């Protein structure tokens, strides 16, 4: 019986035909979800960029939009800024992540580092950017802590720190969020490349800790980090939410400029916006291309050093740097969040007071009055999309295991498509498509849009742990009389509880943080904590922004806390289950 027309498997006895069919279809379904909307949406930007937008009476193809784009004052600056923030953020984040791992790998602090990653990842980009902006501004938290006793400032100095024209504060904000992401990706790969053994071997023949790491582990680790690094480049060169808060205003990064064009009351600017979106594709692709070129050069240039046999290269200095920078990063995050928290309870807080002069709960009351609906919407969308994504990813991974083939390189690459293609480029086209398909805007459409971004992260955080699970467990379960399905549900999935929950928390955090998709596909009718926080951010009241940013951050952080705590509760009598898979 093959009711669904799917072929049977080589192991006829594995699953029922229906389940087996689902496993076989899953990779194609995932590929379609990841690429279909992106391609279609991109087309929706490409066509208007050549002057075709019938609803505005433009029905002849031409290059006017492109000419207007290239003549736009400051366009060169915008492009350069996006390009540079893509490359530099990725470079600095990668170096920092590798350095931190080198310094802390398998030390006592390593446990700390692992645990610090989750909350740092969970804080949404916008909230983190607000925190950093208030931390480092001339009238910000640091200046208030140090004034007037150390600085002599009675009034804030006129210094351009936040939104500086070089984009340094923007890049700093991005680095703070991208380092934890790369750390997470690296940690997932360390076991696969046997980093521990490599280190022990290198150390045993006299290499310093840092040199051992960079000479024996990094060459094996980097290929596995390559796609995550490209995703960092793509995000940093094309993001909106951080750039709006920390990026320079004039000229702004390209993606922000594209958003401004699409918000221009003169509707003909939509075509320039479309051309700008296509230019953004090119800038992001160019940044990644330059990075690939740099990879080659670094590979060539360091070859001699790798095999030189030098046991130490600045090990002491680098170790000190890593030991100093990591706590600084953590401290900056904590101070930033603390400053947000203080703002959320402040009634009056004048410069240079280190703490608010008068306190109030009014901001939280205002949050409590309006947050109910948005919290519910945020939760159901996050839970639904993450659950669906998790099921799909497990199907893909289980399919790969049953057929004993690693998903083709193609699927591995497709996973990254939504992370590599600039959002601003295809979301507008997607809205147009949803309209053409007569799909009413609302929660369902928003959830569908979130899956495009949630799925890749769920896949990235689950796949390594899933693949590393010893296949022997199935065999043992089968010998003990379990069916194939029984072995899967009763033995293998429970053993994967921790990574499954972590992947769930990552996915939910991604869904909770989505702004542009929620906004546009929901026609603004779907209010989540993120859309609410960003709408109020336009009003500029930092105390209310603080309260909302914390509300926005609490949900994903709680998700991670649950993901960490649940296995300990469920397996409190089965300690081995916790260590089974890290």
């Amino acid at each position, binding site marked *: 019986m093959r009711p669904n027309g799917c072929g049977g498997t080589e192991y006829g006895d594995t699953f029922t035909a229906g389940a087996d069919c689902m496993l076989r279809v899953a990779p194609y379904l995932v590929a379609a979800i990841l690429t279909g909307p992106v391609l279609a949406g991109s087309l929706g930007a490409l066509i208007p960029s050549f002057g075709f*937008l019938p*609803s*505005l009476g433009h029905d002849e193809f031409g290059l006017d939009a492109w000419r207007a784009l290239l003549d736009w*004052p*400051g366009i060169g*600056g915008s492009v350069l800024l996006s390009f540079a923030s893509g490359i530099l953020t990725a470079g600095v984040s990668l170096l920092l992540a590798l350095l931190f791992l080198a310094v802390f790998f398998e030390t006592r602090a390593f446990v700390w580092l692992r645990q610090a990653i989750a909350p740092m990842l969970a804080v949404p980009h916008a909230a983190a950017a607000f925190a950093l902006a208030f931390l480092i501004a001339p*009238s910000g938290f640091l200046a208030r802590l140090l004034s007037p006793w150390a600085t002599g400032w009675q*009034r*804030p100095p*006129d*210094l*351009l720190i*936040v*939104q*500086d*024209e070089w984009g340094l504060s923007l890049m700093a904000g991005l680095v703070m969020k991208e380092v934890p992401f790369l750390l997470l990706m690296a940690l997932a790969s360390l076991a696969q490349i046997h980093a521990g053994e490599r280190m022990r071997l290198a150390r045993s023949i006299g290499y310093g800790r840092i040199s051992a790491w960079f000479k024996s582990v990094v060459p094996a680790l980097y290929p596995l980090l390559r796609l995550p690094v490209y995703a960092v480049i793509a995000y940093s060169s094309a993001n909106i939410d951080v750039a709006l808060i920390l990026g*320079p*205003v*004039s*000229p702004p990064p390209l993606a922000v400029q594209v958003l*401004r064009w*699409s*918000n*221009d*009351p*003169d*509707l003909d600017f*939509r075509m320039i916006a479309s051309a700008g979106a296509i230019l953004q594709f090119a800038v992001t692709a160019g940044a990644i291309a330059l990075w690939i070129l740099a990879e080659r050069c670094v590979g060539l240039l360091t070859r001699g050093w790798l095999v030189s046999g030098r046991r130490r290269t600045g090990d002491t200095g680098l170790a000190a740097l890593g030991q100093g920078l990591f706590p600084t990063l953590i401290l900056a995050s904590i101070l930033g969040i603390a400053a947000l928290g203080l703002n959320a309870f*402040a009634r*009056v807080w*004048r*410069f240079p007071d280190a703490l608010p002069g*008068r306190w109030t709960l*009014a901001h939280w009351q*205002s949050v409590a*009055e*309006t947050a109910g609906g948005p919290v519910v919407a945020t939760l159901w969308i996050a839970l639904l999309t993450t659950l669906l994504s998790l099921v799909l990813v497990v199907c893909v991974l289980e399919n790969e295991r049953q057929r004993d083939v690693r998903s083709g390189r193609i699927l591995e690459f497709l996973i990254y498509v939504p992370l590599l293609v600039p959002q601003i480029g295809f979301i507008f086209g997607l*809205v*147009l498509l949803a*309209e*053409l398909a*007569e799909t*009413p805007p609302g929660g369902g459409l928003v959830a569908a849009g979130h899956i495009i971004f949630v799925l890749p992260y769920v896949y990235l955080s689950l796949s390594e742990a899933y693949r590393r699970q010893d296949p022997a467990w199935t065999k043992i379960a089968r010998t003990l009389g379990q069916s194939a399905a029984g072995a899967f549900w009763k033995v293998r999935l429970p053993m994967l509880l921790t990574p499954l929950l972590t992947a769930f928390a990552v996915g939910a955090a991604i869904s909770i943080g989505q702004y542009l998709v929620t*906004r546009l596909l929901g*026609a*603004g*009718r779907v*209010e989540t904590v993120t*859309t*609410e926080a*960003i*709408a*109020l*951010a*336009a*009003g*500029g*009241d*930092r*105390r209310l922004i603080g309260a909302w940013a914390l509300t926005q951050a609490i949900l994903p952080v709680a998700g991670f806390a649950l993901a960490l705590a649940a296995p300990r509760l469920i397996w409190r009598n089965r300690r081995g289950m916790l260590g089974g898979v890290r």
Partner: protein
Amino acid sequence: MLYRRGFAALTLVFGLLGGLSPVGAADAVKEWKQVLDTARGQTVYWNAWGGDSRINAYIDWAGEQVEERFGISLVHVKLTDTAEAVARVLAEKSAGRTEGGAVDLIWINGENFAAMKRNGLLFGPWLGRLPNHALTDPVNNPDLGLDFGVPVDGLEMPWARARLVFYRDTAILPEPPATSDALLAWAQENRGRFTYPLPPSFLGTTFLKQILIERVADKSSLYKPVSESDFAAVSQPLWDYLDLLHPALWRQARSFPKNAGGMRRLMSDGEIDIAFAFSQSEASAGIDSGELPETVRNYVFDEGTIGNVSFVAIPFNAAHSDAAMVLANFLLSPEAQMRKQDPAHWGSATVLSLGQLKKEEADAIRGLDLGPAALPADKLGAMLAEPHPSWTEALEAEWVRRYGVR
């Protein structure tokens, strides 16, 4: 009660207009009854800027009222920029959706309205169908019939009046500069203590217009389409001024606040000494919430400041245009307008003509305490009309060309 009085006034207007009116008063009553019936049970998606929790709370209140009285649910779609709603309607038109659109009502004015009107994205005319329309005394308030100089033509309903007001802390700056020349001189003496929001933000462009109106040789050219005058020559005094002002601005004009909220925050942080907003209530609300010092007061320029009216409009393809009209009519009621003007709730000036209201209602609105920072009505000075909207686009483009590049 409310609506009966509205009808009485409406009848009066139609009576005055005589034969110009296409429908008789009785027909109007019947027609409005029909609108009310159709509207019952509908949900209005009102797209309005969502950046101020007090305005959001006011809109929530309006939602409760229309739910209770007319069986209409209101969903406030909180925009960060009104153009988002315009884009939405445009996308729907591109996709051929001529009915059942996602946007029912938009808080709008100026170039957004001009663009929607130009592109045929608006429903109507419907303003004349609203019973409460007569309370604005349209005959004697012709300014309500123009949106930045563009004829409203019944396509949107006046909702709020706005005036540009400056504010400063009287404890630091008792005698603020009240002309553009004085402002420049003061800024040059107090470097880094003044700024304006980045054009093309609404308030930033308003500042450019305020300066231009004061310094231009022939004001009348600003009230005609920009294509009819020599833009370079007319606008030159503004650029000369900014060339001098910019080096003295906050961060030497290398960065700008985003909007009124951004400016208020800079005031709150003590980074600047003079700020401005499009409402008398901005500073008062800041004082009430503790964001601004209690000694902050509004002031205006000697030659007057720019004022305008903001409206609500219905897109051509709105799914619930009847409910949108009922909501709009409620927003124009004395009750809703009074609450809107009350600084405890919002503090935005009414568009109603007090002469058209019952005496106690008019007295109640006159008697409202406008808040600690507000100027009394007789100290608010002359209102300068908004230039033709085509100037907005031209000024913004030239500003970007001159100052948007480094």
